[in-house]
């Protein structure tokens, strides 16, 4: 068997499909994107090389700046709101035990199994000022004025709420799995030593969850940067571009404005930002180690 694995032909046969997929599905499209990013390609006809013009315009493009800022705001929302709550809920679920544990685990995960299109339309109806659930509730409590949750000033927060709610179950499940893998004897020892619930969480659960937190937070930041479908279906980036996100803006430029070259330049910058964020996050967690 060992001889077989040291045979170069066998190694090549085993590795080749993976390399081929990587080359065709990842590296080649990225190279193509880099190439088109230097052109004025409209998506049809011929492309002309225009050097760095797309990138120069990108740095002056206030709509792109705003979309990037919204993506970062979502990332902050994920880190500051979604993940701490997800972790606390996971810890509470772990202690709940019995049927309740399984039941609530499923309940919290339900939004994740619903299609993005359904989620977007569901929240569209919930937010609607004329027949939406939230306005009906406010009306019940005596608030007569219709509230527009998707107005220019509030839409971004309403969208963030949907995105945080939608991704909550996934984050919670990973934390829950992480907590379940912690050796229970550590909890028993801390209990014997007289540690309270808070101390146990802070000094045992949290430190041992560091690798899980690292993966979860990195994934959350990248998913915030990649966010497109929900925003596209919920607000389309409006009103007036107030809920524009980077990936949605890329789509809009490439496919609606016939600026495929410019869209690819956004894509390239996007890849660079994602790589930088990942490296930065890894560095932060390494320093903390």
């Amino acid at each position: 068997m060992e001889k077989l694995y040291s045979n170069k032909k066998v190694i090549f046969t085993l590795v080749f499909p993976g390399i081929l997929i990587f080359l065709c599905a990842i590296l080649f499209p990225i190279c193509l994107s880099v190439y088109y990013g230097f052109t004025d390609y409209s998506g049809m006809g011929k492309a002309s090389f225009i050097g760095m013009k797309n990138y120069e315009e990108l740095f002056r493009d206030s709509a792109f700046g705003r979309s990037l800022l919204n993506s970062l705001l979502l990332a902050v929302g994920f880190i500051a709101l979604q993940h701490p709550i997800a972790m606390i809920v996971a810890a509470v679920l772990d202690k709940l035990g019995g049927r309740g544990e399984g039941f609530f685990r499923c309940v919290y995960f339900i939004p994740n199994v619903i299609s993005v299109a359904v989620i977007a339309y569901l929240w569209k109806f919930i937010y609607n000022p004329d027949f939406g659930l939230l306005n009906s509730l406010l009306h019940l409590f005596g608030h007569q004025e219709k509230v527009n949750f998707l107005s220019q000033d509030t839409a971004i927060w309403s969208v963030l709420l949907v995105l945080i709610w939608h991704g909550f179950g996934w984050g919670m499940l990973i934390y829950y799995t992480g907590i379940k893998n912690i050796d229970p004897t550590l909890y028993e020892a801390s209990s014997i030593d007289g540690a309270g619930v808070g101390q146990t969480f802070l000094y045992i659960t949290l430190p041992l969850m560091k690798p899980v937190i690292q993966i979860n937070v990195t994934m959350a930041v990248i998913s915030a940067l990649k966010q497109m479908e929900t925003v596209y279906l919920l607000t389309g980036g409006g009103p007036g571009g107030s809920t524009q996100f980077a990936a949605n803006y890329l789509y809009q430029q490439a496919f609606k404005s016939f600026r495929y070259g410019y869209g690819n330049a956004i894509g390239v910058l996007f890849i660079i930002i994602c790589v930088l964020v990942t490296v930065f996050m890894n560095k932060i967690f390494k320093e903390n180690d």
Partner: protein
Amino acid sequence: MNRKLTRLFAVVSAAAMLASGCGSAASSDNTAQVKGANKEVTIKVFSNLPDRKNGQGLVEQTIIDEYMAENEGVKIEVEALDEEAYKTKFKAYAMDGMPDVVSIWGQPSFLDEVLDAGVLAELNEADYADYGFISGSLEGFKKDGKLYGLPRNTDVQVIYYNQKLFDDNGWSVPASYDDFIALCSDIQAAGITPVAMDGGDGWPMCTFLTDILAKVAGTDYASIVAKAISSGDFTAPEIRKSVEILKECADAGMFQTGFDSQDYGTAMNLFTNGQAAMFAMGSWECSMAKNEDIAEDIRNNIRAFNFPVVDGGKGGDHDIAAWNGGGYAVSASSPVKDEAIKFLNYMYQPTKLSKYGWENGVGMSAQDQSDYLSGDESALQLQVMDMVNDATSVSGTPINDCGPATFKTCIESEIQGVANGSTSIDDFLARLGEACK
């Protein structure tokens, strides 16, 4: 060394065969096929009408079925997507081989790039001399004097209203813009939304703005818009005045709360459920009067009027915002181009698209429909027909479709901001200018 080279060659040729296999599979999927000696022909139709059982989609499907029944050996395969998805896939097809007959829009924001890419086949204009096309309706589908597509509809921007609601409350159709604002105030006081507006999509507010501009600028509409787009300067007083009116309408509470984030279906439902007294949309929604999903007392009472005259404006009562937008074309690379053009011509025979469209109440055709009046038309249909017949001038292409695609994207996004007051009129006009440069 030779052995290595032989192996390398084998691997490269195998990969090439694999790639060419994929390529041919893709192309056979996208293009029409001519099979065997019995000349079996498959025409691929790519349509933006996904609902094949109602309205325009039903008309299109009926003609396709008839063509297949009359032409043995011809098979027509339809791929239909809604407009947004359609335009995205159209672009993908343009890069990789188009289906044989496609839906297009005869407006610069869509057609300029498509014609530059050379993906549409040239049509012989002389062939259509007897097809009854309304004068000027082919212009949007031409480039350098050559015809590349045919228009399907004459679209008119109207304001639908619920006549029963108006009669019950003693409201009347406004004769002027000031009357319109006063009417909206009365409707609001009655606890009803005056006008249901699909502001989330951007383009309906642009066609509404087009209607206002047609009233402000009159017959100068097209030249003012063309000049602004070519120079990137939108400070013309007529344009500014129109945007001010749009903002005044929104500020006066003419539209529903949150209009700037609500979509087509939501806005239409407000009107068809009786929660809104009016609905700003194009004439293609005349089929509401025949839609049995809408409550009878509402659908039988839907009527329409044009945006009223503006004090000091050059446009009169009969200067309307109308255009020939959607239509069909044939792919330049179609392997069955002749058969596809034959099918296109069949669709446009006056007794087909135009007649069936009229019978199904899907709005005005781009061809003369006067021969098809049967007496079964809805009052709404006749009213819109009268608007077109009585028009002293028509605006032509709506403002958002007059410029390049970047301008279209910009105006459809920024118009939400200027209507809800978060963007100043100056900034709005400056951004439009920037998008044209």
